[in-house]
């Protein structure tokens, strides 16, 4: 027998993810819809995430653009201006954010119209605002006309038309600031200028563009890094494949340039439905139902009960899961299930339920499945066996089984020691592997990294109790070669990072005792003691209120921590602080997650963090946050306040294989000491929500997968 089908899926389905990709607009050097250097008003498909690298002359722009909502675009850009000799740096690096709003979508007659704020909160190098309109003519031509301010009003500028509203629109300050603050006072002020251009879609893959730019590149000319000879730019865009664009350009009469853009849509993973192997089927009940129903004789037979238990354990093991405990009576089986494998909890539950149909005597009609994490029951899903039998092949079997499932709190579903599965406790797990630890945005070397080996181990002697630790040994890298000394006037709660890198060799990343528990209905608790994270050790406690079926959660976390020694061994420094937050989380039905954390931060500052994430059902997540505390912007230093963007890409999204690992990164333009939070592991909200609504039902389609 040959291998049948499983592996072939990959090549076939990669292409299928890019349906309708031709409707994606071409992007500009700034990574937003545009011609060459000027923005157009073409709408971007909701959820599209683009990575753009563009370079011409001495300018390099790396942009990440995300269509946060159908009309809202957010952009983060990291750019380099070589040999610019600005601000004391030979090569000048700049981080900037854009915000773009789609005022109108293109109609039969009306053009698409968008308004944009470029570099609205950075140091102002690329600051500009624009109003732009784009209209498609026939099948192949697209025209764009726009009005720009700031940088985009610097060539051929005229007196600001908005000055009819107020005279103050006539002027724009050129102050360079600490960055980070909204320079709202300057928006749409100063001279305005007109830009525009034409795009010709020569073939499905090839388009040509010509534009008239309203950017004079004054600063670049002054620093001698670019000669502006002409406002006309010319470009060619070639779509290598759906989602990958390559552009070549001739700009400002003096420079040639190139751009590469990569776009994906989180709602369209490369392999929808996954490529994991087959689940077990729903098995027929053994024997026949007598006049008094199914036989219940087995209940009193210890040998049968013991066989059921070991068979179920083996069946779940084969599916990559673990039977924690089993309670069994004539009609009901309650399974406490540990699922280290499936990122869609509904899939774990669906597979466990089918494994139960194989093992359970015919009289067992009710299956109660309790997902367990860190030894704690997260929720209970009650299924009827006859529903499984009815809906296995039903067209909308997923919807029907969800409608009939009872999803509830598991607070009352305890188990005795006798119910506990053999060999679950004590549990000891370990792992040895490589790691990469990157660091971004050091002006001397924008990307630094260490590579090394890490050893992790965890011992869980009883439900809820975990002793865990991790050692890291860097093997090569350049994190310790940075010369950034902290200039912070606040306690150095995060800015001593370079000291840690320089003075540590073999590091103790964390070493903790954790206890997870259920204080009551809808309540979850955690206590963590030890070396909590790289820079802090101490005590951390958290209580979370989260109803299984509700979108709202509230939590309180209190920590008392001391700063660790720079060698990352067992020692401490003499900075200690009580820090903690009250948190509110709200999950909106359409995939937005809002979160507010208010409290005291590591430097002793008081304030609040606001975060908004766009979250896709498959676990892909893009969000942004900012923190305002009682530290004045001037004391905070560069950046003015803490802020950043957050990106989570589940590995399962990329590989199509189930798994709980994710590429999870937070990008801060700059890390300072104000608004800094403790990084304690296993915070409760993210632990709990996967087994609750709405997450559980959002992925219920995988119940039968």
């Amino acid at each position, binding site marked *: 027998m040959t291998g049948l*089908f499983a592996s072939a899926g990959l090549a076939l389905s990669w292409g299928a993810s890019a349906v309708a990709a031709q409707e994606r607009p071409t992007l500009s050097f700034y990574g937003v819809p545009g011609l060459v250097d000027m923005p157009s008003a073409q709408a971007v498909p909701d959820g599209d995430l683009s990575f753009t690298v563009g370079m011409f002359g001495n300018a390099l722009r790396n942009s990440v653009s995300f269509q946060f909502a159908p009309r809202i675009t957010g952009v983060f850009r990291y750019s380099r201006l070589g040999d610019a000799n600005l601000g004391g740096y030979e090569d000048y690096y700049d981080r900037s954010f854009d915000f773009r709003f789609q005022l109108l979508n293109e109609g039969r007659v009306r053009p698409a119209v968008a308004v944009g704020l470029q570099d609205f909160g950075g140091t102002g190098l690329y600051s500009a605002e624009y109003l732009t309109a784009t209209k498609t003519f026939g099948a192949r031509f697209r025209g764009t006309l726009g009005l720009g301010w700031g940088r985009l009003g610097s060539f051929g500028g005229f007196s600001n038309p908005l000055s009819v509203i107020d005279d103050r629109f006539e002027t724009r300050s050129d102050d360079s600031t600490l960055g980070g603050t909204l320079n709202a006072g300057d928006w749409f002020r100063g001279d305005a200028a007109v830009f525009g251009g034409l795009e010709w879609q020569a073939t499905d893959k090839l388009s040509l563009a010509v534009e008239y730019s309203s950017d004079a590149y004054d600063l670049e000319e002054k620093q001698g890094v670019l000669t502006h000879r002409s406002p006309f730019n010319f470009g060619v865009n070639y779509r290598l494949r759906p989602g990958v664009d390559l552009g070549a350009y001739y700009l400002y009469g003096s420079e040639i340039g190139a751009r590469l853009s990569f776009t994906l849509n989180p709602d369209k993973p490369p392999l*929808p439905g996954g490529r994991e192997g*087959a*689940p077990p089927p729903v098995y027929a009940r053994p024997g026949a139902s007598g006049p008094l129903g199914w036989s219940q004789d087995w209940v009193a037979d210890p040998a049968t009960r013991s066989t059921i238990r*070991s068979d179920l354990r083996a069946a779940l093991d084969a599916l990559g899961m673990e039977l924690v405990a089993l309670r069994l009576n004539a009609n009901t089986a309650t399974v406490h299930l540990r699922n280290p494998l499936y990122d869609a909890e509904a899939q774990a539950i669906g597979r466990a339920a089918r494994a139960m149909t194989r093992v359970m005597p015919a009289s067992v009609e009710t299956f109660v499945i309790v997902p367990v994490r860190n030894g704690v029951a997260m929720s209970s899903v009650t299924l009827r066996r006859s529903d499984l039998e009815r809906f296995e092949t039903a067209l*909308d079997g997923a919807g029907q089984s969800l409608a009939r499932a009872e999803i509830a709190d598991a607070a009352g579903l305890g188990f005795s020691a006798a119910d506990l599965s053999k060999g679950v406790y004590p549990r000891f797990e370990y*792992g040895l592997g490589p790691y990469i630890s990157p660091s971004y945005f050091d002006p001397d070397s924008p990307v630094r990294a260490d590579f090394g080996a890490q050893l992790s181990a965890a011992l869980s002697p009883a439900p809820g109790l975990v002793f865990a630790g991790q050692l890291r040994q860097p093997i090569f890298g350049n994190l310790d070669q940075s010369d950034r000394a902290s200039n912070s006037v606040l306690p150095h709660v995060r800015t001593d990072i370079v000291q840690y890198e320089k003075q540590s060799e073999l590091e103790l990343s964390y070493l903790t005792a954790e206890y997870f528990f259920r204080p009551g209905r809808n309540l979850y608790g955690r206590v963590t003691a030890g070396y909590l994270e790289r820079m802090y050790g101490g005590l951390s406690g958290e209580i979370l209120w989260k109803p299984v079926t509700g979108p709202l959660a509230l939590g309180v976390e209190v920590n008392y921590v001391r700063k660790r020694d720079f060698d990352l061994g067992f020692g401490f420094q003499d900075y200690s602080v009580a820090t903690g937050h009250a948190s509110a989380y709200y999950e909106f039905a359409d995939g937005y997650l809002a979160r507010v954390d208010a409290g005291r931060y590591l430097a002793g500052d008081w304030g609040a963090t606001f975060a908004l994430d766009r979250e896709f059902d498959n676990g892909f997540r893009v969000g942004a946050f900012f923190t305002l505390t009682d530290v004045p912007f001037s004391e905070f230093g560069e950046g003015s306040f803490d802020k950043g963007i957050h990106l989570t890409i589940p590995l399962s999204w990329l590989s199509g294989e189930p798994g709980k690992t994710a590429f999870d*990164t937070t990008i801060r333009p700059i890390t300072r000491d104000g608004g800094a939070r403790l990084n304690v592991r296993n915070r409760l909200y993210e632990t709990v929500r996967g087994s609750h609504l709405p997450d559980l039902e959002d992925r219920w389609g995988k119940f039968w*997968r």
Partner: protein
Amino acid sequence: MTTMRFFALTLIALTQAACSGVGGLAGFSGKVLASDGPEIASPRSRIAAAEARNAPRMKIIIEDRNTEGDVVQIARRGTITTWLSPDNVSLTFDRGLLVGTRGMGRDLMSADVAQSASLIAARQTGPVTRAHGYLDGADDIVIHSFDCRIERRGPRRIDFNGTPRDTLLMAERCKGEAGSFMNFYWTSARGGEILQSRQWVSPEIGAILQKHLPDR
């Protein structure tokens, strides 16, 4: 290597490093102390067990992929049978009509083939509708329906595992938003059961050929 795969591998490499918590453990990992459970029920051992019971077998060919292999019936519940391949792909049939695949890539998650099944069993010509369910990228089931026509194509003598068998060929011509396809069912001239068939799975997988193998 496709761009997406390159991107995926790059991110996987980064992930091993950048993510905290669950993800950090690349390389090897393991579990000790907790005693090992019984032998894991791999697809091969489940198939071996089914073969020991002399469970029915079929040959499956995936046309577009040019692959073929045998599957063994591992479960039967009423008219529903589920068949498993050694590489852990399963196929589920109801009265001989394909109603589900698992582990193929773009799987058929569910199907309503009741009208088709009745007409084929009655060997009648006539219009029917059928519907298929597929998983989308947000883990929702998306249902596509098809307008079909069942046709009686007449007697066909086929080579069935080395012996000629008289069959009646039934065809099903379908059209829908997700695609157009034709299914064929060679039903035994006497009993009417489906001896072999060609059935469409999804746009990405195409059609499979299925043929029952003799008992051992």
